[in-house]
């Protein structure tokens, strides 16, 4: 997928927690309308990468450019610019209703009518949420919560949607629906998606390109299909050994 300027460009990123280096010279780029996956084991720094791009976590050195501009320092400004993160573990607001959760997603937008329209679109995408619109978020099942989290992120009309472990804790059938929805968003609406997944095979199948993150370093990158066939990836992330 040829693109003129990347939508998101990360260069030589270093991130530290206290004295520990969590991301080490990470460089990656995301072009418009791509689905990019970052795969890696637990603790490899995937979530840190997401948080850094969402400006929740500061980086030590390197640069992040979004639409050709340096990334803003405050999370809310980043959201306004069009990057929205669906955090790991969904983190919906359990005591608030589904509707309130969705409205929070549109916090940065002021036009009520447009917001209402987006909500309609989101409810179209996830009809289950419409049934539960006035229920408390905490009473939803895991899959519904994940739908809510994605729906909530879509409410901000993001240019770049980031998903942190969308398959976490979900039954396989729900994961399928989830990933189908993600694909649909990309194909029908041209939404750019950056996705972090531990379930490597799933992610690799879905994405256009992928990066492999290993203890804070990017060790491989390439086309999703290629990586799926790669022996090293297969052995360390897919658990498929020769024997």
């Amino acid at each position: 997928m040829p693109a003129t300027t990347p939508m998101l460009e990360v260069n030589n990123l270093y991130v530290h927690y206290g004295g520990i280096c969590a991301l080490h010279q990470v460089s990656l780029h995301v072009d418009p309308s791509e689905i990019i996956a970052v795969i890696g084991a637990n603790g490899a720094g995937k979530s840190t990468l997401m948080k850094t791009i969402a400006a929740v976590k500061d980086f030590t050195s390197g640069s992040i450019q979004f639409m050709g501009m340096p990334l803003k320092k405050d999370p809310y400004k980043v959201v306004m610019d069009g990057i929205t993160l669906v955090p790991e573990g969904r983190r919906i607001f359990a005591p608030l209703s589904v509707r309130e959760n969705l409205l929070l997603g549109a916090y940065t937008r002021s036009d009520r009518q447009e917001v209402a329209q987006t909500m309609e679109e989101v409810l179209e995408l996830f009809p289950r949420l419409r049934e539960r619109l006035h229920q408390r978020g905490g009473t939803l099942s895991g899959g519904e919560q994940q739908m809510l989290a994605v729906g909530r992120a879509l409410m901000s009309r993001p240019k770049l949607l980031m998903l942190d472990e969308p398959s976490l804790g979900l039954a396989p059938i729900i994961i399928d629906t989830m990933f189908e929805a993600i694909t649909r968003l990309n194909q029908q609406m041209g939404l750019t998606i950056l996705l972090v997944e531990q379930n490597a095979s799933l992610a690799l199948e879905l994405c256009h390109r992928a990066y492999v993150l290993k203890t804070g370093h990017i060790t491989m990158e390439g086309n999703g299909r290629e990586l799926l066939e790669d022996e090293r990836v297969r052995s360390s992330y897919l658990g498929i050994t020769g024997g």
Partner: protein
Amino acid sequence: MSDSIFAMKNVSSEEISLKNLSVQFGGVRAVDNFSMTLYPGELVGLIGPNGAGKTTVFNLITNYIKPTSGEIFFMGKSLLGKSPDEICRMGISRTFQNIRLFPQMTAYENVELGLHNVPHYSLLEAFVRTPRARRAEAETRKRALELLEMVNLKDFAGERASSLPYGLQRRLELARAMATSPTLLLLDEPAAGMNEDECNELVKLIRQIHEHMKYTIIMIEHHMNVVMELCKNSRIYVLNLGSLLAVGSPKEIQTNPQVIKAYLGERKHARYNSNAGSQ
């Protein structure tokens, strides 16, 4: 069910048995009618997709949460109503999915804590450090260093736990769990976040301590090669949405159609027999 494995054991000598355990959180059955029996010296795996209730089973055994119904027997004694620390002192020790070391204590102190969860001298002796107290402390120190050595952490004894690299923290947690001199060890994703080499090393380490210390071990793990390797002579329990889906030897599990469907993934078969998400 693989009857052959059960048939080898005498029922009366069971180490721990969970009987029809259920627990509910706000209407959701996190664990549903789960039963499991282990005999001394066994090493079994507990796998299942995230949210399947694996850690909840550990929490039930250590009575961090109380079951809605069902019973747990450890060496013939019921564990219900006992506090987590009593249960630990009875001989059940665990590690945690999200490492829970004492961050500001050194590696050595972390291990030491497990050794003196009940101090070895009286409070009065603590204030004046009688020779007996000093001897007890020296003994503890020796044991702690031995344990650190066993997990290859002796060189890091004086480092703050929080400043250790991730992999070493996992091993430190293992050493700390061993320090309470358990007979049953509950390992919650010991290989989480480790790369292949580290995993291999861990497999070696776990096998070594299992053989050497004669622990009974229940292990939750997502790294299939770790589980399959360590449990190759015993069995694996598969949990899904709180209830037992299957139990059997690694081979049986890998080929069990139900397991493949729920956990390893159905669509593209073989490709999905991996870690379907973690944490």
